[in-house]
């Protein structure tokens, strides 16, 4: 019941707000907090809470959900982002429309995490894409081109993903006579193998990696994160990416273990190149938003590096980095939201020397930038360290490239900080610009404590990922495991 409620509750709220938009300010925050409580209770309930409905012949139960540690952890992460994002969008004029889109997005995300039926997963995945595009369309600069580009990338990719799974479905069905889309049915005996497997894996990758976004499929991310309102960018870069990563771990790799193994060396390399390339893009960013966008893409490529290493340590690191990056996304885009609320659009020319005016904001910005650089003791460090260390065991050279990308990101973050906060006060900044207000400070503290907790005591979260590879694929990878 909890799993269905996790999907349906935000959708019900969105429907209600669609009819009575005047309630949005009263209802949004309590509803989001209730969603977080539901997600936490799903995480603590553990086991398999399974419920089914909508049986279709040849497809199975379309609405069927299954709990797992990984899914519950990601669900809690996504649900935790929601109240922060809403709070940062509080004073925007498009708040009402944004709340509806955000609730639809989060509900669909919960569906992707818990779906036990591939078609169910796919339906939710597409709703994530559509509501994401809707969020880009209605918030911030209301950039139609960015929204359309995002949607074309994700829909085009996910149709290829669908094709690959249809192929597996037909192949499985003709082999053992059971045509079903359920996870247990599809992944029980992984087939097909041989020459077609790498192609199928590439097709699945096209759908899943585009959401992350992994290097050469990343080019929608700059405009999308850069032009939407910061609150929308938080959800896109922190929460929507979870669906892509989860799809890779839960669907693509177990369904095609051979294809995954064959692709792994190239995957590690693309991840490494992407980390470095996005860091360069961030160095060259024309404004603070683009900087945050490319920095986030750089981290996601590091996640891809860790996933494709197909090695326990790297996988744990990558998943941990996903969770940490969600918090970082709130921090980075939160700073941008705060600056925008004070009438500072974020171009480098219009910033500089802010620290003198707003020391509290300056301190918190430094805190999040340090997190982004991967300072030990802060949230990103364990993830970055583990994924690099794991990937290094599998293939050292790409890991070295990625390490260089992380070094570069230190420079990138420091330079951005210097441009925004240090130096003489920019004369273009209005005089009496206010420091953090009470509400903003509370949020910063909450985020900061979470970041410190993840950084200083990563074990509770890392423990959730324990045994993930064996459960999913010990049988499939038997012996072929490298780097152990």
């Amino acid at each position, binding site marked *: 019941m909890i799993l269905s409620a996790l999907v349906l509750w935000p959708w019900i709220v969105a429907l209600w707000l669609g009819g009575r938009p005047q309630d949005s300010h009263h209802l949004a925050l309590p509803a989001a907090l209730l969603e977080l409580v539901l997600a936490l209770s799903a995480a603590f309930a553990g086991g398999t809470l399974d419920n089914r409905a909508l049986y*279709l012949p040849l497809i199975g139960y379309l609405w069927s959900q299954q709990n797992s540690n990984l899914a519950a952890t990601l669900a809690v992460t996504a649900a935790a982002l929601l109240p922060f994002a809403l709070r940062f969008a509080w004073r925007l004029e498009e708040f009402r429309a944004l709340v509806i889109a955000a609730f639809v997005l989060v509900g669909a995300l919960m569906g992707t995490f818990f779906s036990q039926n591939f078609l169910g997963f796919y339906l939710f995945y597409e709703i994530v894409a559509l509501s994401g595009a809707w969020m880009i*369309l209605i918030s911030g600069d209301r950039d139609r081109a960015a929204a*359309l580009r995002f949607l*074309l990338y994700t829909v085009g990719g996910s*149709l290829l993903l*669908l*094709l690959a799974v*249809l*192929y597996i479905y*037909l192949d499985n069905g003709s082999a053992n006579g059971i045509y079903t889309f359920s996870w247990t049915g599809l992944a029980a005996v992984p087939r097909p193998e041989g020459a077609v497997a790498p192609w199928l894996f590439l097709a699945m990758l096209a759908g899943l990696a585009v959401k992350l976004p992994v290097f050469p499929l990343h080019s929608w991310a700059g405009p999308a994160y850069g032009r939407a309102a910061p609150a929308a960018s938080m959800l896109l870069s922190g929460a929507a990416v979870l669906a892509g990563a989860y799809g890779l771990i839960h669907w693509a790799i177990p369904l095609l273990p051979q294809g995954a193994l064959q692709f792994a060396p190239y995957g590690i390399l693309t991840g490494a190149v992407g980390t470095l390339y996005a860091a360069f893009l961030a160095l060259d960013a024309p404004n603070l938003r683009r900087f945050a966008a490319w920095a986030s893409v750089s981290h996601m490529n590091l996640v891809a590096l860790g996933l494709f290493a197909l090695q326990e340590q790297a996988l744990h690191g990558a998943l941990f980095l996903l969770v940490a990056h969600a918090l970082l996304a709130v921090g980075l885009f939160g700073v941008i939201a705060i600056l925008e609320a004070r009438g500072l659009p974020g171009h480098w020319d219009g910033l500089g020397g802010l620290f003198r005016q707003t020391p509290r904001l300056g301190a918190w910005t430094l805190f999040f930038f340090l997190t982004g650089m991967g300072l030990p003791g802060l949230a990103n460090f364990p993830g970055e360290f583990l994924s690099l260390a794991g990937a290094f065991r599998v293939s050292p050279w790409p890991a070295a490239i990625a390490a260089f990308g992380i070094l570069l990101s230190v420079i990138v973050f420091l330079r951005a900080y210097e441009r925004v906060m240090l130096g003489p006060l920019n004369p273009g900044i209005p005089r009496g610009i206010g420091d953090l207000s009470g509400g903003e400070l509370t949020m910063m503290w909450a985020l900061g404590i979470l970041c410190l907790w993840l950084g200083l005591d990563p074990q509770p979260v890392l423990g959730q990922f324990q045994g993930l590879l064996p459960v999913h694929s010990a049988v499939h990878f038997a012996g072929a495991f490298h780097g152990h």
Partner: protein
Amino acid sequence: MAIEASLEPLALVGVAALLAFFFDLAPILARWALRFGVLVAICAAWVVFHARLELGGGFYWDSSASVLGVYLSLATAAVLAFIAGHPLAQRLPGALTGLSLTVLLGALCLVSSQTLLGLFVGLELQVLPFFALLAWPGSRRIALEAAAKYALLAGLASALFGLGVAILFLGNGSLALIPPQGTLLTGFASHLGLLLLYAALAFELAVAPFHAWVADIYEGAPAPIVLLLGAVAKVGILGAWIDLASVSEAWATPLWVLAAISMVIGNLLALRSQRIRRLMGYSAVAHAGYFLAALGAGPLGIVAATVYALAYGLMHMASFLPLSVLPEDSHGIPWSAFRRRQPVLAGLLALALLSLAGMPPSLGFFAKLGVLLVTLHGGLWPLAVLLALMSALSFAYYLPAIWRVDRSERSPALKQAAWWSYLGAVGIVVLLLGWLGLPALLTVL
């Protein structure tokens, strides 16, 4: 005189169509003409439903024919109910009803006929009424041009079809389309004849190299007539394709070549078109391609193609029903006025566009899913990849059609009728939840 059970639906609709023309004689009767038409169409659905698996008289209500027949009858009923509130129906309502029922008669012939002659008669029956309907009194001047274009091309297609039937008869001496006997492929003459039949049907369906007429007619003709054209006449043609393809399985290659060309050209042209009706016209070319892709994939493809034909008819209806409410000369969709004054129909239009693009969980997605499954099953994976990429591309024009703000944004005079909202609500439910009925449909097929 006893009528064979397989002829009952056709006899009912034919007699009713003739009767309907006499309603114009008296003004009191004329007001009831369209309601009479709705009633007849609903009765026809009932009779078709009971004629299931009846064979005789050259007609065979096999599973796909009876499913499509029920759909065609109900679609005609819905269209006539809608037109009853439309200003177009003020002149000669009896004749309008009679012609619409004749179109239905032709479409029923097309889906159920088991002889080539039956197909030819069906084609003529549903083509001829459109010569008059496309330029119905009360529509714009440009409609006359559309009607003339349609007359020319449909005449050409009919001629090709007739020639094809004659050559086929010359080749194998039989007009039968029943699968065991009707192996159409013996000798050169049969191949040539079949080629001509395919060309004629491709003209009628606006499949890609034969698509030139479609956008002009979609743009020029009155919207309610385009509604009838797509939701009834085209689905009839799709039924004829299904009949033909099921007896000429060896001829799958031309089908999927046509499908590939049609998908690419239709989508690219739609991407370039600015006006909503032209866009719908070109996207119809692309949808003909998706349909043929299913048909080219062997015996399972027949099932998927039937489902696609059904879904396409429903989606076309759901998009042109709301478009008929707008002024005839509107280039874009005046969303804000539309949402304010006809919220249900505006919602239906947005949903229909998403469904045409194949957005899950709408009906259009499940129809495309079926096509993808059968093409992969048939080993046509390049076609499946092309279909996936083209469907993704189609988002690039369907979504801007939803987002685009009409620059002129004057408040246009929308046509109003009280019961249109109910029709729209039914349409929304069908598009959103229609796929729940697909398993039941598959067991029938």
